[in-house]
Each structure stands twice: as structure tokens, then as C-alpha cells.
């Protein structure tokens, strides 16, 4: 029983699908941000697995996943700041109630 690259890629695909489901169905803006973090993690598993199995000599996949983590941190910070601002103005963070810009 050997764990191959396909196992890791399948795990990442399933995790990405779970995050996609959360983004599509959550009403809470914080819940949507948490689902996006799940999708980021799926992508990072893909990058590190490809680095381990396809280009084991250099670390390009791992370095790229570090950049993904950094950008995810920036995204979470700005996203949660926007959520707090929306909550302060609307007293609500359910995205289907916030339809001020919906024509």
C-alpha cells in the first residue's frame, strides 16, 4: 500500500469541492471566508504534493505555497475588516440581506 501523487491530488480535489460548496451555500460572510480558506488549503496541498513528486530537486512548489499562504493572510485581514465595517453599518452580515448595490 503506497501513497502516490494521485492520492494527494484526490484529497485536494475533495477539499476544494467542500470549500466550493461552503462558498455557494453560506449566508454568513465569515462562513464564506472560512470556506475560501479551505479552498486555499486544497491548492496548497496540490502545490506541495507536485513539489514532492514531480520536482523534488528544487523547492519551487513549496515557495509558491508560502506566497499563497501570505496572500491568504492578507485576504483574510482585509476581508474580515470589510465584514466588520458592513456589520457596523447594516447590523447584519448575511450576504443575501446586504443588497444595497443590487439593481
Amino acid at each position, binding site marked *: 500500500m503506497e501513497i502516490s501523487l494521485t492520492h494527494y491530488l484526490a484529497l485536494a*480535489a475533495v477539499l476544494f469541492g467542500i470549500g466550493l460548496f461552503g462558498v455557494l451555500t453560506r449566508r454568513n460572510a465569515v462562513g464564506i471566508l472560512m470556506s475560501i480558506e479551505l479552498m486555499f488549503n486544497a491548492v496548497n496541498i496540490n502545490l506541495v504534493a507536485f513539489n514532492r513528486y514531480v520536482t523534488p530537486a528544487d523547492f519551487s512548489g513549496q515557495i509558491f505555497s508560502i506566497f499563497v499562504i501570505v496572500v491568504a493572510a492578507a485576504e483574510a*485581514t482585509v476581508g474580515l475588516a470589510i465584514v466588520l465595517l458592513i456589520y457596523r453599518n447594516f447590523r447584519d452580515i448575511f450576504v443575501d440581506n446586504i443588497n444595497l448595490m443590487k439593481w
Partner: protein
Amino acid sequence: MDSAIAPYLFYLFSFMIVVSGLLVVTLRDIFHCALFLIICLFSVAGVYVLLGADFIAAVQVLLYVGAIAVLMIFAIMLTAKVSGIGIKQQNEQVPIAIITTVAFVAIALYGLGKTIWNIKTDAVISGDTTMAIGKLLMTTYVVPFEIVSVVLLAALIGAIVIARRN
């Protein structure tokens, strides 16, 4: 990683990732979702250790579990009045979303099963990856490294400006 127990650890971490991930997107109490998100992120760090990426695993624990999850819990607590148990947390798109997600995952798994990857296992580097990554970040990848520092600074200032009380 010891190859005898590595498959079992992989299946254990996969089980924990999938189960806690499903709980993150389906539970009604958003605070419980955040706690299961922490379990999921820890399990992903375990997968990184299985892949021999110990520095990425450490960064995962420090940044995701230590910073982002705590940030999520802060946001949930600051918006606590609308995060109660009695409120519907999912919109009316659940059946369509299930169909879409299952179709996406099925297509992705089908493609993964059909593809022959160009696998090289002869030159696997074992041991410490931190020094190699640090050297690469300071030589080959120094320009992206500096740019991403500016991105972090911009996000920091932007978050303060957005969330500041007037």
C-alpha cells in the same frame, strides 16, 4: 517519514480533513465551524509533514492556526448577535450547490485517474528544508519576496483604514 506507517497517517489525516471540512461548511453554529476549521488546518499541516515539507507545516500551524483562525473567531465574536443557533445559515441554493460540487469533484477525480504524471522519485531531498527555502527566497525568489512584503504592508494599512471608527 517512516514509510510503514505513512499510508495509515495519510488516511487518518484525510479522514480528519474531509470530516472537519464538511462540518465547517454545514454546521449551524458558526463558532463551532471555526473550531472545526482549526482541526482541518492542523490536519493539513500533518499532510505537509507526510510530504516532507516541514517548513510549510510549521508556517501552516503558525499562520493559519495561530493567526487566521483566531482572526475568524474574533470576527465571529464581534458579530455575535447574528451568529446564533436559531438563524438559518444556508441559503436556498443548497440542492444546486450539491449538484455543482459533486459534478466538479467527479470530473476532477476522473481527470486525475486518467492522467499519467511525470513522477521523479530518484532525487527526493530528505531532512531539513528550511535552510534551502531561506536561501532560495533570498536569491532566486528575492523579487517576489519583496513584493509580497509590500502586499502584506498594504493589507495591514488597508485593514486599519477600513475598520477604523470615524
